[in-house]
């Protein structure tokens, strides 16, 4: 047995040294390599999962936003139609009022003009009568004067 161990160079001190060497390697690799790489893999998995979750949330939010935008546009359309309709009604009422007022004013103007025409005619008549009377008197005077002369 001793010869066998000697032939292969088996030495318990070297055995322990190699075991310690492997211990150092496993410890260093665990600390410098395995731990950071596994942590990086876990972190990336976490980031990807979060990204997928965020995308799903964003998609849901986008769908919600679309619905809300559609509802708002519909409400705005209804409001606009109501405002236009109200404005049209108000315009029609104003138009009617203005027309009535204009008609009333036209009637008043016409009546005023008629009254004035009547007054002018009456005055002309009165002046004509006065002139005729004066001319008649004048003619009578001439006739009388001619007769008595």
């Amino acid at each position, binding site marked *: 047995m001793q010869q066998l161990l000697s*032939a*292969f*160079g*088996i*030495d318990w*001190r*070297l*055995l*322990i*040294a*190699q*075991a310690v*060497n*492997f211990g*150092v*390697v*496993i410890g*260093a*690799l*665990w600390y*410098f*390599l*395995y*731990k*950071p*790489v*596994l942590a*990086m*893999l876990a*972190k*990336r998995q976490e*980031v990807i999962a979060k990204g997928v979750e965020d995308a799903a949330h964003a998609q849901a939010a986008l769908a919600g936003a679309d619905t809300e935008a559609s509802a708002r546009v519909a409400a705005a359309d209804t409001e606009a139609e109501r405002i236009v309709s109200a404005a049209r009604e108000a315009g029609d009422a104003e138009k009617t009022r203005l027309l009535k007022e204009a008609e009333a004013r036209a009637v008043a103007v016409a009546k005023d003009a008629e009254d004035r025409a009547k007054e002018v005619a009456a005055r002309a008549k009165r002046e004509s009568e006065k002139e005729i009377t004066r001319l008649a008197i004048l003619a009578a005077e001439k006739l009388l004067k001619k007769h008595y002369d």
Partner: protein
Amino acid sequence: MQGGISVVLKAEQLGSVFGFPITNALVMTWAVMLLLIGFAFFFGRSLSLVPTKLQSAVEWAFEGALAYMTEVLESKKLARRFFPLVASIFLFIAIANELEFFPGVGSFGLVHATNFLPLLRTPTTDLNFTLALAMISFFTIEITGIATLGFFKYVGKYVNLKSPIGFVVGLIEFISNLGRLISFSFRLFGNIFAGEVMVLVADYFLPYFLPAPLMGFEMFIGFVQALVFAMLTLFFIKLAITEPHGAH
């Protein structure tokens, strides 16, 4: 080559520090450690959420290995617990084996008297290295088995007094379990050492042509042996934590 082929079964001692022998395999082990730890240190610091090609490759390997271990052990928690051990066994052996034919390994050395002492020798061609790893693997497997199943249930796998056949099967299992220490260490040692000898022989008989393809093949063998050692450790852990037959 004038002196013929010289094959040395054990790692050569370069010197000693306070009576502790420093062999060329030990020096090479430290070099491999330095490479691995250096890479891990700089790589670990350069990680980013948007990975580079190298980081993507490493992450792909990690995820693949973890997924496979989870499938074998049927537990994500156990896979994460044993991942550092299995991955380190693979990396340590693989890097050591892949450096086997690098310039300088086995060719740079000291001339002591008339003998040439290479400064670097592949650690897996030193039984101290492979046996140390085998022992670590063996004790991890046994301790995991006992911790998971409990001492008596685990021992019950090997000591079965219910029937003569059960007793014999238990005994065979116990011996084969102990045999793992030898199979683990000698499989790795034998494969890599034999590869080196084969390249040495090829270099002696047909230099310039034969060694290069053989070196490529041996590098492949080195990778496979690292994989075999790591995978067997994983499978034996699975066997150790599996309930014995008839326990349900």
